[in-house]
């Protein structure tokens, strides 16, 4: 080997040993360029008139100096972003089609009359920086697919208007009035296409528990919720029109059970029906039934009970929030582990039979047709010290996505994720 060959071999070896470029390089370049331009423009004593146009369909916005701003969730598309040392998360977590759009923690705030209000604090992805920032203005927040917009309710529930929040500017761009519709709104959820909202209405704060209804629990007394759901409204986000229908909290005639103040309502998988979770499994005759019949009722958008769509008969959003896979060929099933092990399962949506047993503790959302984001615990760990993981059908591989939550309810370390399509 001569010197030239050694130079060549050394350079090749050195190049091969160079790790991949940082994932956010493009974002860094554009941000640095924007800053440089902003300084440049500020320094020059000239005024430039910029003509800007906002394209609604494209998830991009224009900032003050006319540059296009890319959403953090958009820039990262196609990449898996994990932060296993972060709990609660600080930086964007994303896999496949899904990203952690926001999360919330809950604390109990005792009132002078000993009532308690379970009060949520939301941390929302800042689409400029890719970091989660506390936004303490809201009692309720949900994020639309595309992660450009959120729907928010102000601190006093039930709320008389729904805010449409721009996740780039963090400003409410529009208020949708909801006065006079069944008391007020206690929860909102987007339809799968993001064009509609389902607003569940209550005549009391659904997050409040009442001392007057206290029950003895473990040698002490705890305030209890009261049934206060009045109905729901289907809201067209574009026009702001709302169509309200009465639907009091579910009561099973014989057992008289309800879900606290009345479970919030969701859209079904394709947004054509209302999904209502109930806390007893009943079959068509109203009798408590075998395990296979899921605890939910489907309704049309006017509130009339309808049979479950064939594909969605076994969707159980209480036990497995992930629901149907994107291609509709599998449905997330409930916990399938034992006393000391965790496991989950996916089911055949037509029969409810198990299609595969998987790792994980609770299936939260489908990242794509083969992978799910789930809660799981570290081997031998506390049952409630869950971290977000990525599990793959047909594989034992578990990829941690976040740090572990603290087990204690109502503590700042116990966060609940809100996912959205990125």
């Amino acid at each position, binding site marked *: 080997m001569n010197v030239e060959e050694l130079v060549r071999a050394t350079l090749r070896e050195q190049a091969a040993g160079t790790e*991949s470029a*940082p994932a956010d*390089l*493009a974002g860094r370049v*554009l941000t640095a360029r924007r800053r440089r331009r902003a300084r440049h423009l500020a320094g020059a004593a000239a005024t430039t008139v910029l003509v800007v146009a906002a394209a609604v369909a494209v998830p*991009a916005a224009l900032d003050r100096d006319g540059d296009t701003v890319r959403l953090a969730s958009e820039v990262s598309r196609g990449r898996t972003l994990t932060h296993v040392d972060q709990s609660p998360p600080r930086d964007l977590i994303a896999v496949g089609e899904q990203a952690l759009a926001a999360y919330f923690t809950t604390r109990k705030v005792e009132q002078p009359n000993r009532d308690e209000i379970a009060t949520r604090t939301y941390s929302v992805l800042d689409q400029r920086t890719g970091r989660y920032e506390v936004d303490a203005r809201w009692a309720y927040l949900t994020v639309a697919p595309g992660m450009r917009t959120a729907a928010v309710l102000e601190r006093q529930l039930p709320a008389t208007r729904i805010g449409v929040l721009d996740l780039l500017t963090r400003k409410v761009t529009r208020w949708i009035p909801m006065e006079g519709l069944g008391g007020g709104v206690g929860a909102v959820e987007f339809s799968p296409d993001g064009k509609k909202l389902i607003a569940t209405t209550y005549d009391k704060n659904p997050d409040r528990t009442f001392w007057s209804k206290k029950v003895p629990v473990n040698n002490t007394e705890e305030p209890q919720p009261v049934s206060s759901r009045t109905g729901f409204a289907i809201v067209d986000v574009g026009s702001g029109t709302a169509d309200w229908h009465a639907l009091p909290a579910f009561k099973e005639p014989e057992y008289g059970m309800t879900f606290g103040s009345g479970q919030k309502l969701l859209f079904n998988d394709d947004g054509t029906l209302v999904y209502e979770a109930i806390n007893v499994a009943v079959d068509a005759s109203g009798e408590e039934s075998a395990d296979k019949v899921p605890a939910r009722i489907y309704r049309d958008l006017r509130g009339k009970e309808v049979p479950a769509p064939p594909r969605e008969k076994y969707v159980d959003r209480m036990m497995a929030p992930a629901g149907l896979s994107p291609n509709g060929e599998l449905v997330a099933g409930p916990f399938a582990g034992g006393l000391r092990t965790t496991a989950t399962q996916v089911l055949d949506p037509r029969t409810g039979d198990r299609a595969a047993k998987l790792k994980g503790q609770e299936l939260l959302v489908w990242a794509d047709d083969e992978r799910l984001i789930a809660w799981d615990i570290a081997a031998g760990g506390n049952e409630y010290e869950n971290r977000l993981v990525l599990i793959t059908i047909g594989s034992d591989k578990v990829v941690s996505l976040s740090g572990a939550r603290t087990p204690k309810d109502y503590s700042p370390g116990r966060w609940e994720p809100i996912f959205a399509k990125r």
Partner: protein
Amino acid sequence: MDATSQESFLEFVTNRSTALLRTAVLLSGGDRHAGEDLLQNALMKAAGRWHRIDEPEAYVRQILYRQQVSRWRLKGPRRELTVAEPPDPADGTGTATAADGTGAAELRLVMRDALSRLTARQRAVLVLRYFEDLPEADVARLLGCSVGTVRSTTHRSLARLRALAPELDLLAASDDERQGQQQPPSRDFAPVEVRP
């Protein structure tokens, strides 16, 4: 930058940044952080005129090379280099011997260190000639100089490498042996000090 340009810029960076970073790190004498800075600056410049660029990769590479050899970059103090390898071989001799097969890796370490001590221009010429395998004429065009300058810079860079790492003489010796020429035994040299 409009939405279409931005889309294509993001796609380019996603697909090509690791390859470009490799070149940038080599140009920076193995300094990963300096390499990232170099690449980021080059990409920023390219982003400014993205919609007018026909061949983005060639364009960004040209910025990389020219930026690296431009005068202002030579002014900065040479940064301490971080290497992953331990500074001394396990046997503690620290001496590289070409005859010994295990010495090849050490020689490359010595070479890496010597490369990092070249000037940016010298290093750029070697990277273009021996890593990118470009003919002298292309190197001249990329760096904006004459073919004669490329040739003389290459020659001087190799001579400088030999001066910085005398043990490279062993290579020449072993080459000569292979060619059947009798050479006087090379002089003894002190253990090589490889900087951490």
